[in-house]
């Protein structure tokens, strides 16, 4: 297994003031693997996700990409080119069109020829169901559409891993489905994924592995069947029941 490890999270710890939000978190992400991180609010799920591409600093520990530690400077910019991220609040570039959002990083960061980037962007926009909307301003789209643009934008860099930070939590309920079905398609492309989510059924369906976090610690790391059918402890059983009741 060890040779197909893409990313290693090693003993990451972080505190906000007196509150320790991450306590020596460690896990590996393998090629093609889909990991869902579940847990109550404030358990540190989003924080650990943001530490992986270092949008969030950490006090201790190490992130390894392809076996090499990544700290800062050039290596960090390169790491980020290989790790896509989809945010809760979409974060599309509002001064740009849909197409410009998707080609921005390939053209200016990766220096892909513009025509090539446009061709690839059109393919991706077709995949996320936004064919024909290339020229629309991103800010004029619905939340679900903006999130699909953001997914295409992340995919355009050909990442090894995509991090999803509660990708449907800011959406109106009727728009959740369209975004989840796009994430399913992305999963089918074979890219590795780490998803922080509250969508239990979705996590169960898409993930190969569930990490359950509580108070800054990973308390369970199991395949979905085991996680949902044979919860390790009462706390997890309670959590599953509570979230499913919503």
């Amino acid at each position, binding site marked *: 297994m060890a040779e197909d490890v893409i990313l290693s999270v090693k003993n990451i710890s972080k505190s906000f003031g007196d509150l320790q939000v991450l306590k020596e978190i460690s896990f590996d992400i393998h090629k093609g693997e889909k990991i869902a991180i579940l847990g109550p609010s404030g358990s540190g799920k989003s924080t650990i996700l943001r530490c992986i591409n270092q949008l969030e600093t950490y006090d201790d520990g190490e992130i390894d990409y392809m076996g090499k530690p990544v700290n800062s400077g050039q290596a960090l910019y390169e790491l980020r080119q290989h790790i896509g991220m989809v945010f809760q609040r979409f974060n599309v570039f509002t001064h740009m069109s849909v197409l410009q959002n998707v080609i*921005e990083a390939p053209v200016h960061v990766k220096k892909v020829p513009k025509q090539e980037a446009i061709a690839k962007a059109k393919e991706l926009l077709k995949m996320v169901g936004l064919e024909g909307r290339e020229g629309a301003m991103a800010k004029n789209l619905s939340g679900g559409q903006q999130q699909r643009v953001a997914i295409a934008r992340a995919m355009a860099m050909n990442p090894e891993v995509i991090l999803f930070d509660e990708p449907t939590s800011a959406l109106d309920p009727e728009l959740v489905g369209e975004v989840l079905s796009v994430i399913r398609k992305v999963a089918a492309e074979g890219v590795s994924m780490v998803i922080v989510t509250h969508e239990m059924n979705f996590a169960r369906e898409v993930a190969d592995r569930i990490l359950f976090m509580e108070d800054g610690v990973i308390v369970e790391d199991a395949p979905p069947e085991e996680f949902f059918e044979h919860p390790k402890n009462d706390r997890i059983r309670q959590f599953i029941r509570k979230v499913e009741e919503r």
Partner: protein
Amino acid sequence: MVTLKWSLVFDKMSSLLHGCAVTMEISVLTLIFGTILGVVLALMRDSRIKVVAKIAQLYIWIWRGTPLMVQAFLIYFGLPNLGVTLSAMTAGVLSMSLNTGAYIAEIVRSGIHAIDPGQREAAKALGMPWHLEMLRIVAPQATKICILPLVNQFIATIKNTSILSAITLTELTREGTLIAYNSFHYFEPYIAVAVLYLILTTIFTQIAGILERRMA
């Protein structure tokens, strides 16, 4: 019996219009240099390197906290004591730019801070280094936000240039003063000067209004 001699003003209209041109020249140069300085100061002020941020903060504190006229006196009359002699025009543009830069820094900074932090994170997450994030994501959006306050700053600059008449720079106010000195009539030339300033500032206020409506 009060007699006003308006012919004084009309006979010297070409001098007054020349004064307007000089005033506009100083104002435009000040806007250009002040904006460059303002952008640099704004970026320094938000630098993660504490010393750099402190230097910018100190600069803004001093230049906004002392009168423009004293700054102009120091540069035009004071610097020659240190062996640096500047023409009135150079000293005038320099003191206006150094002063205005401090104000524009705050305009630029508030423009940058108005940009959605989420979009900046998205840029970082895509592997954009700082300069690309600023150039491609922050600058286009912040420029839009800054344009209106910049036009207002420019209008203030046009009026502030009158202070430079005190360092013998022959701009609009000084042209009026020269007419007054030669004729012992003060009312007419200064009314003419005031009207000309009003015309200049009105033009740019109108432009600001158009921009505001366009961007709303």
